[in-house]
């Protein structure tokens, strides 16, 4: 097994202007927020026609993690998994999203199927996807306080919130 941290030592390969990382044999692109939509679009044109998954990660407890490629790690990361049915390949795009401005452009216009994923990511992490047609919560009740999958949202210490309950 190769070293799992995989900060690539060999010459940096790029695709659509993004450094390519080999994460345990899987191809990962690190896009900046500005590149994000155009990279996904370029990949879609290249044959990655299906967006199978979009999710977030809160790296609050790993602030000094090494990404490599001179990329400044931020608190949030949005991870997009793309699939090419024709080429039978997968590719993953990771984008750093700072906590001060937790916004990212939506992929709705390229992959309408990300609608629910983006709503879920918003619901769980509070990352707002600009341009999304219906940026509401999806799993939690709409009057819920906080975003549960953030690392500073502790488990078990929050009183149970019931919608419409008499108090």
């Amino acid at each position, binding site marked *: *097994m190769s070293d*799992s*941290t*995989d900060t690539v030592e060999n010459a940096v390969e790029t695709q659509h202007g993004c450094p390519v990382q080999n*994460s*345990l044999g*899987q191809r990962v692109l690190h896009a900046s927020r500005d590149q994000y939509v155009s990279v996904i679009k370029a990949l879609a044109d290249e044959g990655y*026609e*299906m*967006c*199978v*998954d979009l*999710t977030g*990660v*809160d790296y609050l*407890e*790993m602030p000094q993690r090494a990404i490599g490629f001179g990329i400044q790690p931020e608190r949030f990361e949005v*991870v997009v*998994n793309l*699939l090419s*049915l024709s080429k*039978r390949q*997968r590719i*993953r795009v990771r984008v750093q999203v700072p906590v001060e401005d937790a916004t990212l452009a939506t992929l*709705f*216009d390229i*992959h*309408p*199927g*990300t*609608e*629910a*994923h983006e709503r*879920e990511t*918003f619901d*769980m992490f509070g990352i707002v996807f600009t341009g999304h*047609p*219906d*940026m*509401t*919560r*999806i*799993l*939690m*009740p*709409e*009057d*819920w*306080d*906080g975003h*549960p*999958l953030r690392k500073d949202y502790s*488990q078990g210490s929050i009183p149970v*919130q019931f*919608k*419409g*309950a*008499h*108090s």
Partner: protein
Amino acid sequence: MTVISAGTAEGGQELLSRSELTAKELLREVGSVLRLSEAEAALLAEVETEAPEDQTMIINMGPQHPSTHGVLRLMLELQGETVLRCKPIIGYLHTGMEKTGEALTYMQGGTNVTRMDYLSPLNNELVFSMAVEKLLGIDGDIPERAVWMRMLLSELNRMSSHLLFLATNGMDLGAVSMMLYGWREREDVLRFFQKVTGLRMNHNFIRPGGLAADLPAGWRDDVLAILEGLPSRLEEYEILMTGQPIWRERLQGVGVITAQEAIALGATGPILRSTGIAWDLRRDMPYLRYDELDFDVIVGQYGDAYDRYSIRFNEIRESMRIVYQILERMPSGDFRIQNKKVTPPPRARIDESMEALIHHFKIFTEGFKVPEGEVYVAIESPRGEIGCYIVSDGSSNPYRMHVRAPSFVNIQTMPHMMRGGLVADAVAVISSVDPVLGEVDR
């Protein structure tokens, strides 16, 4: 009601009435219901942006409705009996399983993920275990017997899941006797699972490194009994349903989706295959030893509810074919990897060795550490692509554990399939998408 917070102003999740919408917002909403971009939605000439308000009404179907397969709520805008717009509202079964997954060790994680898609628990465990094994770098060292046992269980699980689909599909469309038959046959498979794993459901049997135990004595006869009993039963179902004009009338041409739409919406599994795209991860991106087996990928043509029914029906037969091959080729050997890091010592060793006892204690209290990294692994569950994305920070708990649930994505196709159809067909559509709400909400 207590005001909980001011920080949540993103608004309701409901379908708004048309009078509350500006024209652009309405277009957007229709777009979002169609799950198309605004530009694409505008291109669809048949989108009625000006249905008379007094002729339509918005009603709730669910969350407690027998044909919603759990707690799914659909807001339907109806004009007479025609569905104009539909919005699925989910989250009623949300229990924060991804958050729970961060607090459980890799060893305990199986008990969590197995409860997501409760109709195919073994596939959930399999994808989780494969992701952990990939992070550990032991994915190539799993003993052959463990790999083939995993395939055996996974395929039997696919059969039980599809049998339950036949049962609920029949019930939703009025073939109530089918419900009893489907549950009965599924029970045969679950009885085998109980013999092997100790539990009918939520097994936690496939674990990182292999399986929890070896197959019990007489397992081959039990599997053969299932396989030999099933074909005649399937013939009965064909007579009961497939050939019946009423059955065909209820399903053919209902809930149509095109290949382009299915890909755009990220739909996988029988929904994608019903549109004519032969995409099955078992064949196209093989995992375990599926590349050594001989089976067909069942593909539809029209993308309607009838195709999805037929695909699942015939996938039972394909799974049976696979299980026969597995029975023939099941190797002997170990059922889990002999890697001291991941595998607890055998019970007999604990009686004679202090180190084994310590090792056993440590592995069950602290778990094993997984090197830093992130990985996405996907397999074909009965409902489509189930994926597991794990980020490890080097400790014995996942830093982030995300499950890409096929039902969660597939549910987005419902508004599209229902649009312009009848309310009665909405039931057929829900049934043919075959969502498991435990997996949708996680």
